[in-house]
C-alpha cells in the first residue's frame, strides 16, 4: 500500500492503517530500535509506542514520507527510553556512541542558557549540508542509525581505520560548527 493511502487511512481513523504501517515499516523500525537499545524487549515496546504515536499524531500531521516520519519517531522514542533507563540497563549502540559524541560538544565557557533541541538540530542540518554526500551519510549512519564503523567500512569497501579518522574529523567539524553558531548544550 502506498504511503499516501496509509496516511488517508489514519485520517479516516481506520485501524487497518496500523497493520499497514506495521507490515511496511515495522521491521525497519524494530531493527533500528534493537540496534540502538541492544534489547529485543525494549525494541518491541518501542515499536508499539511508535504505532501509538503515529495514531495520535496523524491527524493532524500529514507526513510526506511515512518512512522518514516513522524512523524519526522510532529514534526519538528510542533515545528517550535509553535516557530514561537507569544507567545499569543502558546498552546497544547508543551506549557506544556517547563517548564519541562527547567530541562534538562545543565549549561552554559559562552557564549560558542551553540551546533548544530544534535550534541544535537546525544547526546540525546546516553543517551536514556543507558535507559531501559520502561524509554526510557516513556521519548519519554512525550517529543516527548506530551502524558500527566496521559495518560501514565493509559495505563501502574501505578500511575501517580510514573511516575512524574521517569520523574523528567530522566530529571536530561539527563541534566547530556548533561553536560558531553559538550552540550551548
Amino acid at each position: 500500500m502506498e504511503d499516501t493511502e496509509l496516511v488517508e487511512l489514519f485520517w479516516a481513523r481506520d485501524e487497518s492503517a496500523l497493520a499497514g504501517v506495521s507490515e511496511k515499516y515495522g521491521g525497519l523500525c524494530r531493527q533500528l530500535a534493537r540496534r540502538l537499545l541492544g534489547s529485543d524487549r525494549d525494541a518491541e515496546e518501542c515499536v508499539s509506542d511508535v504505532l501509538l504515536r503515529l495514531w495520535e499524531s496523524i491527524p493532524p500531521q500529514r507526513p510526506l514520507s511515512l518512512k522518514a516520519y516513522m524512523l524519526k519517531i522510532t529514534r526519538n522514542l528510542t533515545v528517550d527510553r535509553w535516557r530514561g533507563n537507569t544507567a545499569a540497563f543502558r546498552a546497544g549502540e547508543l551506549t557506544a556512541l556517547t563517548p564519541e559524541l562527547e567530541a562534538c560538544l562545543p565549549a561552554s565557557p559559562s552557564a549560558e542558557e542551553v540551546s533548544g533541541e530544534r535550534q541544535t538540530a537546525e544547526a546540525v542540518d546546516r553543517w551536514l549540508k556543507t558535507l559531501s554526500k559520502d561524509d554526510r551519510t557516513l556521519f548519519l549512519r554512525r550517529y543516527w542509525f548506530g551502524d558500527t564503523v566496521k559495518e560501514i567500512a565493509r559495505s563501502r569497501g574501505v578500511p575501517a581505520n580510514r573511516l575512524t579518522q574521517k569520523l574523528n574529523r567530522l566530529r571536530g567539524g561539527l563541534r566547530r560548527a556548533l561553536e560558531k553558531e553559538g550552540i550551548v548544550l
Partner: protein
Amino acid sequence: MSERCANLLAALGGLEEELILEAAEDRAKKRRRWPRRLVKTLAACAALAVIGVGVLYLVPTGAHSGGSNVGGKGDDPRSFLLYEGPVLPLTLRDAREDVSAERSVNLDFAGWDTEGTELLIRDSYTLKNTSGQDQTLRALYPFIERFSEVSRRRPTLTLDGAELETTLLAGYYAGGYEGPWKGSVGGDENEGSVNMNYPDSWEDYRDLLAGGSYFDAALSPYPDFTGVTAWVYDLTDPWYTLAEGQEAARPVLRITVPLDYARTRLLHTGGFSGWSWDDGEGWMRFQYDIPGETKGSYKDDGHRTVVAVGEEPGDLTIEGFTSTGDRAQPLEAGATVTKRAVDLEEYLRALALERYGGFDGQDGRPDFETVYGQFKLWLVTDGPLAQEPKERYRDGDLNFGEAASVDRVLWLEAEITVPAGASVTLTAELTKEGSSDPFRSRGSTGGAEYELATRLGSNLAFTHQSATLEDRGKIEIVRQNFGFDLKKGVKTVPLTGEIYFLEVKAKAD
C-alpha cells in the same frame, strides 16, 4: 554519559527527513550483520580465577587441529567478512556404537533472491538401532547464532514428522578479540583486545569444536557467586557550590577508590563519562557529570553505583572539578555515599532479571538462566572479573548487552527413542543466510556462499551422507565442491569430504 552529550543525541532526532532518508538508502543498499574477521587463536586453556572470591572457573577453548581435508574438487572454502558459519551435523550427548546414521541434506533456494540470501535447509538423519534393545538417545542439533536472534533462527526438529520439544544449550562466545588497529596498514602486529574479532571461516569453527572441549564447556555449570560478598557504593544527590567569581562549564565529580587490582575489582552499572586506573599507585577512578536542570524527558537523577568485589577497598574519595581536561579547577562538590555489603549472586541476578527479562524461554527465545549464566561466564573469562580482563572490559562496566549479542554455537537437545532393530528419522528445518564479502563482490552482482560440515563436532557413526540442491531456477553456481551440475541435471550428490561449500548468485534473466 554527560547530560550535554544526551542533549546532542536527542537533538539529532530532529534532523531533516531528507537527510535521514538519504542515509537510510545508503545503508539499505548494503545492510549487513555485524562483520566478522579472522580469529587467529584462542588461549588453549585458561584457568581463570575471580580474584579473592574463591571461584575458580575453567574454560577450555578447544584444541587446535591441523590442516583440513576439504575433499571434492574446486577451490577451498574461504574466509569472509560477513560470515554466517557452516551448517553443522547432528550429534549425541553420549556416543552410541549401536546407532548408525544416514544423512540427507536438502538445500532449497525457494526463498532466495537478490534481496535476501536465506536458504531453506532440511537436514534429515535416519538413525538406525542395530542392537536388540530400544535405545533412548539425547540428540543435539547445533547451529550458530546469537541469543538475540535465536527466536528468529531456531531450527525446528521433528521425529518421524512429529515436532520435538527441545531445550537450548549454549556455548560461549565463538570469537576472540583484537587490537584497535588490527588489519590497518602497519597494524597487523598490533596486539590488543579492545575490539571483537568474530570467526570468519569454517576453520575457526573447526578449531573451536575439535576435541569436544567447547561442547563440554556448554554442559558445565555456570559460575555461582552465592556466598561471595561484594560492596555496593551508591552515590546519590551530587551537588556543587561555586566560589565567588567561579564558573563551572561542566561540573564533574571524580571518585577515586584505593585498591590492589590483584585483590579487588571494581564493577559499575554505567553512567560514568571517564575512568582511569593506576596499578602501581593502587587506585581506580571514575568521573561523571553533575546533572544540571532537567530538560526534556531525560531525567538523570545523579545516581551512580560502583561495586567492589574481592578484598574490601579503602574509603573512596570524592573531588569536584569545574570541567574536564587540563583547565579544570577544583570545585566544592560532593555526593551522598552509602555503602552496603551484598551477596554478589543475588545482586547480579536482580540486575540481570531487569536486563534480560525478555529472555523467557517462550516462542523460541532462550530462557533467562541460560543467558544470565553466559553473562556470568563472560564476567570471569573475558569480562572485568577475569584474571586478565580483555581491554574492552577493563573499566568494569557490567555490559549485559554483550552476552546477548555475540555469536556462539548453540544446540537444541531432544530425547528420542529408537526401537530395537528399527530406524527413526530426525529432521531439522532451518534457514541460513549466505556468507559474503563486500570486497570480493564489489562491482559484481554479488554472491552468497553456504557451507556444510559433514562430521565437525559430531560423534555419530555415519554410513552415508548426501546433499540435494533445489535451485528453483533462481540461482547460478559460481563455485562449489559439492559436484552439482545443473546443466546435466546432477542435483543429488554423495558427501565424502569434511567440508562443502556452494557459492551462488541470482540467475540472470
